[in-house]
């Protein structure tokens, strides 16, 4: 095994283990702030895995937009709420069985899809051209949705004022 292969697999294994561990922390910790921060670390690990698969710019986009904006926003919002942690009592064995079965089903279904080796990945210019020429209508809808969502968020948040 070459050193580059060793580094690649080392990084991949580390990111995988980190993602799963922080996911467990996000679910099991009693403090919602720590749960939100753990979600940020899961997002960072997932971005690292996306970069290792070959989608570098997508990983950066995920880090900036998802981890940097959305999860940070969620963390600061959680900080403002003085809420008590709570779980539905007695449901955890059923939930554990259900989640394990779901995970097995996702793995089996996805791994049975005949997947070839990764193809040549596109550059950022190619992606931008495709986005603006081939997929201009979904892009337009996304922009309109984002604008609507911002207005909607402000209106909903102000709606609770008395």
């Amino acid at each position, binding site marked *: 095994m070459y050193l580059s292969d060793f580094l690649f697999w080392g990084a991949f294994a580390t990111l995988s283990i980190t993602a799963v561990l922080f996911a467990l922390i996000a679910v099991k910790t009693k403090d919602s702030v720590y749960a*939100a921060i753990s979600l940020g670390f899961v997002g960072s690990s997932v971005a690292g895995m996306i970069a290792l698969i*070959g989608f570098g710019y997508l990983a950066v986009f995920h880090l900036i937009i998802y981890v940097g904006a959305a999860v940070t926003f969620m963390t600061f919002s959680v900080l403002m709420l003085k*809420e008590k942690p709570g779980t539905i009592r007695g449901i955890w064995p059923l939930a554990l069985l259900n989640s394990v079965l779901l*995970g097995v089903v996702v793995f089996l279904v996805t791994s049975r899809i005949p997947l070839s080796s990764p193809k040549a990945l596109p550059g950022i210019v190619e992606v931008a051209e495709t986005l603006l020429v081939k997929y201009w209508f979904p892009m337009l809808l996304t922009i309109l949705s984002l604008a609507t969502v911002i207005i909607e968020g402000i209106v909903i948040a102000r709606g*609770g004022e008395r």
Partner: protein
Amino acid sequence: MNVILGSIGVAATLFAVGAYGAITHRNIIRVLISLELMFNSVLILLVVLAATRAPLDGYVLALIVIALTSSEIGVIVSIIVLLFRRLGSTDVTQAKTLKG
């Protein structure tokens, strides 16, 4: 084991952990965090499938999905803040106003 199978394994584990959290928690923030874990797992699967099938189309789809999910978090957190102002709690079992 190649990188694709490893990614699928991690995605399945994240999905299972997220599903467990979404089922067991009563706190709406924790439910949202669990659902976001499931989103991250699905994103890994999307990227893996895109890398092996149609990289360009998958790339564009993943970009749009990340942007829309981020905005969705904004709306849901706004709803949570509104719910907290109205009810003084983030317990989903107390939000019964929409029930008939």
